[in-house]
């Protein structure tokens, strides 16, 4: 049976990468998706590839009105907004000592403030209409351990975990679940540096399972947490990282213990 038959999901940052793959897989399991993104061309292309169960909605998560309109579009087009996946993010790396205020604000605005606004717009509709819902927010390994030289990214990703848990606790009795996923190194347009074979090889080697993730690896976790299979899961953090976060001692030389 199709897991998402009759359900509608809004994917913020849904035009490409992990968000794009989420849209494809969600629709393939019977659901309908609103692809929210600032990238109109990519988003429109993806919607037409998926077909009648997808629409593109221009979405700037830093604007509360734009978030509200995205929820309205889901309801208008498909009748409800049951699920929300937040993927929108920017990376603007620099050493903290040189980090420009604009760079800090850009990443915080899109990654953290924008995620709050999108969740709030979704939550307002769901709570006003007495509807159950499930939210999955994309954090990162970098939200669990500091990612040096990533600018505001690590701080934003850590904030996302707490924002998600906070939402989960405040809205639990409203039947809205919220969970965070922390991917490790994942090959997406955001991480174009993985196209460099040397970087990809190095990042694969530091990961216990010996490879970087593909978006599909992350999407399976997103769909599990959205679905009723995860009915009792809220305020949780799921690492999908091939063991990366737990492996710092792998880098310690000199374990000639036998």
């Amino acid at each position, binding site marked *: 049976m199709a897991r998402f038959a009759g359900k509608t999901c809004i994917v913020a940052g849904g035009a490409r990468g992990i968000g794009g793959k989420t849209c494809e897989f969600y629709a393939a399991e019977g659901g309908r998706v609103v692809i929210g993104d600032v990238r109109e061309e990519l988003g429109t292309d993806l919607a037409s590839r998926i077909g009648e169960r997808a629409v593109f909605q221009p979405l700037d998560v830093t604007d509360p009105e734009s978030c509200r309109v995205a929820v309205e579009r889901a309801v208008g087009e498909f009748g409800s907004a049951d699920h929300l996946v937040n993927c929108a993010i920017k990376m603007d790396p620099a050493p903290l000592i040189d980090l420009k205020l604009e760079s800090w604000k850009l990443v915080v605005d899109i990654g953290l403030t924008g995620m709050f606004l999108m969740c709030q717009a979704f939550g307002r509709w769901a709570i006003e209409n007495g509807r159950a819902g499930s939210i999955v927010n994309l954090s990162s390994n970098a939200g669990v351990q500091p990612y040096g030289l990533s600018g505001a990214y690590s701080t934003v990703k850590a904030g996302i975990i707490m924002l998600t848990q906070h939402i989960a606790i405040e809205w639990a009795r409203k039947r809205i679940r919220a969970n965070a996923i922390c991917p490790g190194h994942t090959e997406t347009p955001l991480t174009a540096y993985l196209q460099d074979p040397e970087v990809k090889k190095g990042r694969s080697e530091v990961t*216990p399972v010996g490879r970087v993730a593909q978006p599909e690896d992350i999407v399976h976790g997103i769909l599990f947490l959205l679905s009723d299979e995860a009915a009792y899961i809220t305020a949780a953090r799921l690492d999908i990282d091939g063991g990366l976060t737990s492996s710092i001692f792998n880098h310690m030389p000199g374990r000639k213990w036998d």
Partner: protein
Amino acid sequence: MMLDGKKIIVTGGGSGIGRATCILAAREGADLAVADINPETGDETVKLVKAEGREAIFIEMDTSKKEDALRMAEETLAAYGTIDGLVCCAIKLVPGRLEELPEEDWDMVMDVGLKGYFLCAQAAGQSMIKNKSGAIVFVSSVGGMQTYPLAGAYSVCKAGAIMLSKLFGVEWAAHGIRANTISPGQVRSPMTEAMFQDPEIAAGRAAVVPMGRVGVPEEIAEGCVFLLSSRARYITAANLPIDGGHGESKMIHVPGRNWGGKKIAYDPDK
């Protein structure tokens, strides 16, 4: 189906979360080795798995004994020729105050809940290492992330189980084996049923969970099956709480939110 043709061992498979995991795994196409210390409940799970149209064998064992763990792997291999997955659920809950906790109560919990997990994973892992493939799921508890006062060695044992699964996950990643933990919150199961029979306790325990209810074994089994399946192929050394938000709810119980004259009474239903 998520576990089509997979051969899965579940310790503590005779009841509660273990039994629910056996049944759900069977529905997803797996054949089961039901390991339990109690042959009556174990045989009942075998019947329930067969009713789902899948194969099941019963292995009577004490998970804290190495020879039993080795026999568990042998009997599974004899029946199915391979071992694709292991779920460790077997546990004892022996509550007590630390100042008077008897050594044998400490040992009982640690032997079954931590050494037993190690022995079973080590035994089942031999075949997985040979196959360069396998998935291990340890059932821990929110008590492994938060102190569980008056529960004796339980929360220490459960914290150890989380770390042990991460260790298996990282050390055996090169063998193509994944290992993860599920940390259930409060679940109504045979282990906790006597407690939940008291209506006051049942109501009180539901009320402290942000979602407002305790969980059922099937909800934990869903997580176990997901982590066993190829959908979780990039997930290892992870710990997934399934607790209705309980593990993150401490600040809900802090009274008096009167911040700078802005008084907001915390009412979870508002």
